[in-house]
């Protein structure tokens, strides 16, 4: 096996992994603030991509204007979703919340199908598509965008969660919602905030991957699933460990496809994940905590 082949597998894996990571962080933020596993997260990825397309083609906006526009509209959908579906829930048991987000994801996907049709669409890359050679491997400028934006988002998250009042409040909610409420944190507002942040982040993920992977109304399902896995490997953290989770998943898939069998690549990734979970039931990065009775 040649070195440049391995290098290519790893590079490809890292760039797909970064996408999984971005989506995964969206899962984690909502989970930490609310205890909800938001199965509609993938749909915001789809919305981000398709809205950018509409801004570019229908409104004839330049790319730099289309992107914030798409993020804004996706965020509004996120707010509506929280207001209309999550907040009015009478019995917010975890399982009911799972079903409601599944219902929401089906609904959003269905609406997207009506608006944009069933076709796949292409979006032009941000800065050309001349391949960049690194060693014997190549990547595209868009891959650099993905890596850079993922990095920036982690940094912003870090600053927000550790150095702002509302970020600290949201972290408090994730440790103990009732206690957070007692010290005067408006928990419901934090829930809304978490939806705003994660829908915006999903949209960003959709926008930056669309030039590579193309976009259609049904891409959210698979990307959402992979993002969900990344978040769980990372122990549902909204920081570096979910990113590492995403990167591990991406690299495992790519190496599996290249070295073992392309047909079984997803299975290989999942088998390794299962083994990791069997050895460390508390997750890759979690500390074993004793159960309170």
């Amino acid at each position, binding site marked *: 096996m*040649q070195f440049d*082949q391995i290098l*290519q*597998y790893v590079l*490809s*894996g890292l*760039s*797909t992994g970064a*996408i999984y990571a971005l989506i995964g962080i969206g899962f984690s933020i909502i989970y930490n603030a609310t205890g909800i596993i938001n199965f509609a997260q993938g749909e915001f990825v789809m919305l981000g991509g398709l809205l950018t397309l509409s801004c570019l083609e229908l409104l004839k906006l330049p790319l730099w204007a289309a992107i914030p526009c798409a993020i804004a509209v996706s965020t509004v959908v996120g707010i509506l979703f929280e207001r209309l579906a999550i907040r009015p829930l009478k019995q917010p048991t975890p399982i009911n919340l799972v079903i409601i987000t599944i219902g929401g994801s089906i609904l959003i996907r269905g609406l997207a*199908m009506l608006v944009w049709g*069933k*076709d*796949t*669409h*292409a979006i032009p890359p941000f800065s050309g*598509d001349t*391949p960049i050679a690194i060693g014997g491997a*190549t*990547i*595209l400028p868009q891959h650099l965008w993905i890596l850079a934006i993922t990095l920036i988002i982690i940094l912003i998250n870090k600053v927000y969660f550790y150095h702002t009042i509302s970020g600290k409040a949201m972290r408090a909610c994730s440790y103990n919602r009732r206690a957070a409420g007692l010290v005067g944190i408006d928990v419901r507002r934090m829930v809304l905030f978490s939806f705003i942040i994660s829908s915006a982040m999903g949209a960003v993920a959709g926008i930056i*991957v669309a030039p*590579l*992977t*193309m976009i*259609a109304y*049904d*891409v959210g*399902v*698979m*990307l959402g699933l992979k993002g969900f896995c990344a978040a769980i490997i990372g122990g549902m953290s909204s920081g570096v460990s979910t990113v590492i989770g995403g990167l591990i998943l991406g690299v495992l*898939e*790519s*190496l599996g*496809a*290249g070295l073992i069998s*392309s*047909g079984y*690549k*997803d299975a290989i990734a999942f088998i390794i994940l299962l083994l990791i979970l069997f050895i460390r039931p508390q997750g890759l990065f979690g500390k074993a905590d004793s159960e309170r009775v």
Partner: protein
Amino acid sequence: MNFKVIHFIIAAVSLLFSANAFAAAPIKIGALFAVTGPAAFLGEPERNSAKMVIDEINKAGGVKGRKLELVVYDTAGDATKAVQLATKLIKDDKVVAIIGPSTTGETMAVIPVAEKEQIPLISCSAGSKITDPVKKWVFKTAQNDALAVGRIYEFLQKTKQTNVSILTVSDGFGASGREQLKNQAAKYGITIVSDDTYGPKDTDMTAQLTKIRGTHAQAIICWGTNPGPAVVAKNVRQLGIKTPLFMSHGVSSKKFIELAGEAAEGVRLPSGKVLVCDLLPNSESQKKSLMLFVKDYQKHYKAEGDHFGGHAWDAVMLLRNAIEQGADTPVAIRDQLEKTKNFCGIGGTFTYSPQDHAGLGKDAFVLVEIKNKDWVVVK
């Protein structure tokens, strides 16, 4: 339970049905298409074409004074649903024939129903095993995958590019293509040096292509439907692979060129003639049907008609011809269909016989190359 109420309902329903029977009843044709779901790229143009051609026929006064009525159901590409809906078409809607389903998997699932209920089925999917062995009630209009593979292999044999890598999508379409690619290789003296697959929703195929780059392949054949092949074409370009790239007829529409952009240049693929119909000589027997189909489709849907829609167009026209010969019961329609000779449709020139329910010859496909965002016929 109040039996009086039930009796009343039954009476009312039967009255409704008998009232229908008194009017000059239209001939009901059923259709099963995967209008939503992963195979929507097949089902949607098929449904559109079938509706369009039935409308046109009725506008022209129907067949022998009777209108045709199309009952379409969406299977979402799911075999279970396809079987349920086939039963519904036969038992509730009482159709005389069924068009579809769109995919080979669904068709294989529906075949036992059609055979048992003795209703002619004209499938719009490509799998060779649908009509091989021949089943009494089952016909098909889509060209066999075997023919598309044969067209590519012929070219490769001629140009002495005998080491090929294949990369197929892991769904029904890709699996069927993969089987044919492997089965026919020896016949054309072709060696398959690597055999890889990718998932229908995968977004990056550089790993598979990196592996292919490490082999001595003289040609890469990718078998899939949008958007996968467009990603493959882009990745090939990204990795700087110079090996010629071949695709299947699954991407023979302008959509592929739009998605793959620059990366589509130089890609070759087998395609039904509908794609290049305006380039065909006037002596071509199919030309009249092709031009009519493309023109009607443009008029009705403001879009380019593709050969998937053509499968449904052919199926409706075959049925119309059978009905015009006086057949209006399932048995008579089946017998008439089997007698079809030299019908020039979109997919090719159909001649059915008791031994052949696929009805097409090798000339159904032409090999095209993408040049300057358009199609050029490869000689």
